[in-house]
């Protein structure tokens, strides 16, 4: 569905975006480079003011790069062609309060090139999908913030786009809304759509994404597949009493071993090694006193990375 001869869906290269002029010039994005491949779900995370929304707005053509480039489906970001296969959810958006939900989706669907018969078939199902079933003829001024956000998701999906760009995905949603949204995203992900989204809900990012791009002060801080990133963050602790003349087995040697009196504390950073380490230690006659797992969340890791970056001169 999202395939385009293996080319990236999103390509950002050395992107620089500056606001203001003269002394008030501010660099919001400072040489960001990354790509999103077809079918990938990529989380774009960073603190407030890190440059996430600016990057996403550049991808949509709302603002223009000072230098560098941004391409979507091989087209220069901002061109009509680049937006043809994209569904976009803005960070904060209100929808015309004088319109009904159905009329709004007809407008956005029509602008995306859908025929009236296509819209008639899609709108009720789509509203049902985002939890707004039966609200077709309700004026949007009567919609709550959460309902507006759900409608925003519906408008981004109306043309069944190949790729989705969501800025602050779960903003304004209650826990139930977040759960529903996660289900919708999982469905989209499983159908092979490319998803690129920013969120402050890092547990959401961790559970949904294949890869993350961390940004801080306009620069990419870290870019890695979630599995690869999280693997060393999940530590397993083994506390044992070594026998006399104990020699550490090879499987445990590459992990962090600390001596604490007559006891040893081994921190295994790789879940794949853990069973082997345990069996090798037991085979060497160690007395295992305690085992525990220490899971570091993406949020903890993110905070640590940002603090490190802040401390750098």
């Amino acid at each position, binding site marked *: 569905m999202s395939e385009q001869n293996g080319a990236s869906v999103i390509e950002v290269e050395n992107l620089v975006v500056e606001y203001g002029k003269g002394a008030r010039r501010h660099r919001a994005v400072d040489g960001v480079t990354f790509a999103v491949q077809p079918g990938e779900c990529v989380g774009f995370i960073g603190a407030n003011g890190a440059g996430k929304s600016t990057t996403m707005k550049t991808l949509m053509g709302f603002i223009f790069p000072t230098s560098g480039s941004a391409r979507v489906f091989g087209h220069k970001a901002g061109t009509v062609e680049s937006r043809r296969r994209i569904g976009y959810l803005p960070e904060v958006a*209100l929808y015309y309060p*004088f319109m009904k939900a159905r009329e709004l989706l007809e407008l956005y669907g029509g602008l995306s090139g859908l025929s009236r018969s296509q819209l008639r078939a899609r709108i009720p199902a789509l509203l049902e999908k985002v939890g707004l079933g039966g609200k077709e003829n309700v004026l949007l001024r009567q919609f709550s913030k959460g309902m507006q956000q759900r409608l925003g998701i519906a*408008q981004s999906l109306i043309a069944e786009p190949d790729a989705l760009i969501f800025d602050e995905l779960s903003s304004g949603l209650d826990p139930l809304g977040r759960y529903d949204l996660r289900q919708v995203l999982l469905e989209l992900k499983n159908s092979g759509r490319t998803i690129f989204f920013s969120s402050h809900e890092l547990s959401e990012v961790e559970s949904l994404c294949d890869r993350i791009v961390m940004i801080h002060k306009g620069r990419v801080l870290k870019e890695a597949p979630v599995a690869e990133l999280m693997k060393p963050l999940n530590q397993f602790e083994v506390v044992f009493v070594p026998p006399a003349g104990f020699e550490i087995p090879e499987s445990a040697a590459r992990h962090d071993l600390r001596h604490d009196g007559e006891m040893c504390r081994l921190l295994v950073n790789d879940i794949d090694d853990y069973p082997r380490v345990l069996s090798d230690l037991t085979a060497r006659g160690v007395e295992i006193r305690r085992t525990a797992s220490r899971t570091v969340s993406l949020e903890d890791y993110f905070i640590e990375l940002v603090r490190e970056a802040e401390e750098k001169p």
Partner: protein
Amino acid sequence: MKPYPVWLIAKSVLLEAVRRREIYAIVLVATLLIGAVMTVDFFELEGLTKFYREVALKIMSVATALTVIVLAARQLPREFETRTIYPLMAKPISRLAFLCGKLLGVMVAGAFCFGLFMVVYLCGAAYLGSSVPWALFAQYIYLQIVMLLILATLSFWLSMLLNLDAAITIGAIFYVFAATFTTLTTYIYDFTSPIGQFLIRVVIYAVPQLTLLDLSEKAVHAQAWAPLRFATMAQLTLYGLFFSALYFSLAAIWFRRKPL
């Protein structure tokens, strides 16, 4: 540029104008004013019908022009303020098509407003037994729409340079004082120095003379005036289109590179 997306944007502007009910409020106030004119009893019948035409047409012109100025000036600032522009411009539609749609919507809403006034006016005319000079009247309506186009495009452009309030104020001042300015320059021209005359000519050519497009006086005194010739109407149309195209182009150039 495909026409259907332009029409969709225009339809949303029209829907807003209709659902927000401002137009009805303006029409209601104008109707009351026109109704008040009909109660005047210090003219004989012919004088009253002329007075009715004069005042009613003036009220219609002013009310429609102000409606169009406000509608046009607020289109873009309102989109930015409520951030409705983001999901809209995320769709495969060019900025030019968006702007054309907004302009078309404002013009259709203006025409709708004018249409409502016409119904009120014709009802009043029928009540007073006043004949309607149809040919001249049709020309009056047509040129009013040309004038509304100038005002709408000017307001669009102003709304990109200034904030909403300033754009509306300047648009309204421009409309209200345009006629006064033309009259004033006509009077003072002969008494001005050559440099002053040159400057007046520059201003007259550079600023659209809306009075040229106002046939209300002729429509009031219809028995004394024949309808304008086709060539004159064509020239006036071109004159209006020139300024409309100029203002719209300036607005489009500004909007093309404007960060959203």
